[in-house]
């Protein structure tokens, strides 16, 4: 019962962060701020959702798998955000028309 309540709170809090990330993606003025909004807020939101789901998981294997997924998303998201930002910084926002 308490676990269910905690899951509800955590998932809803996670959704709030997802919503904030998408709002930032749509409203922020340039690619760096948009990357920043999307990567940070969404990763935190996913972390909260994962935490909420861990309370519903059966057995340590599933809990470990969920944790692994979140760590992977963190690593992959940070890498992708860094690389897209770096490329935009060195090559400009638009494609060169060769």
């Amino acid at each position: 019962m308490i676990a269910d309540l905690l899951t509800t709170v955590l998932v809803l809090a996670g959704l709030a962060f997802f919503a904030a990330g998408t709002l930032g993606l749509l409203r922020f003025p340039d690619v760096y701020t948009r990357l920043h909004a999307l990567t940070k807020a969404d990763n935190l939101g996913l972390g909260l959702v994962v935490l909420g789901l861990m309370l519903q998981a059966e057995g340590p294997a599933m809990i470990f798998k969920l944790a692994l997924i979140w760590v992977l998303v963190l690593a992959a998201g940070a890498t992708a955000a860094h690389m897209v930002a770096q490329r935009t910084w060195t090559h400009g926002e638009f494609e060169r028309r060769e």
Partner: protein
Amino acid sequence: MNAALLTFDFVLLAGLLGVAWRCLASTDLFRAVVLFITFGLLLAIAWVRLEAPDIALAEAAIGAGITGALLLVTLERLKHIMNRPRTDTDHDPAPPPDPVASDADAPGAAPTGDAASRAADAGNAALSCAPAPARGRWITLVVTVGLAGLLMATLATQEHDPGLQPTVAEHMDVSGVDHGITAVLLNFRSWDTLLELAMVLLAGLGAWSLGRHDALPARPTPGPVLPGAVRLLLPVAIVTGVYLLWAGSHAPGGAFQAGAVLGAAGILVSLARPHELPDPDPRLLRIGVTAGALLFLAIGLWGLFAGPALLTWPSELAYPLILIIETGATLSIALTLVALFIGGRSPREDT
């Protein structure tokens, strides 16, 4: 609960149709490629809702890891090919696909002069062509709506038919595995799977027949982020691939999914390339690429002479045989996908 799921499905369907439409209607090829990647990932969620997690796994691995990389690389090559100056107007053999070591921006290859810039203009025009004239739009609309109506009428009138599910469930105990899909793919209908492996092999041979690829020198990145991420992701990807292969005997997973994950890991390495890629012995590579289909065929033939029939195995041997076939198939699929991405034969090959 059901109403919520139904709403989810309709939103997903609307998203799929919208993305497909924007992807087809896009005049900018890069945007179309990104939308196509998006479409593949949405499709993976759609497969989940169709209760086909096996296909969702394959679609996730192929859509996220392989299609995107292949299309982006193809786009880059296409730009390069279309923008290169034509020295002769008649037959100009296409250069071998060497996407990984693209020399698109080598200073010597920059187009010079009027002819070159005209060629570049033509190339760019071809890459982002104007939308087709609106002729026939109404006919298309009528045909589409009519087809959709027919399909929905068929769905509404069709009786619920469990298909072959009861038959498969009845024979699960002789299949050697505990997962229905794997039992069908590797035992009851192994002929189909053999032909699928042959198709993968043919695709690889097709890419190899076009030429050789360049040497693949190291491409250091500014900053430690990409090498570090590869160092973290690669072992996890390999473990995940092996896990999916192993899970195939009792849960969604199997050779195609495992091969796609391992292949995507290989593509990630060849993209990041912190060190020069080792060029494997061409003979070993050929053995690896054909191993899946050949092992399958050999075991199938053994079934013809020593067992019940062609491509069937006695139930007590089924599990080890399926495991051998799946392992070989995983290896071949992963190698073929990486070879398709690199494109072209090894430069070390003699003839």
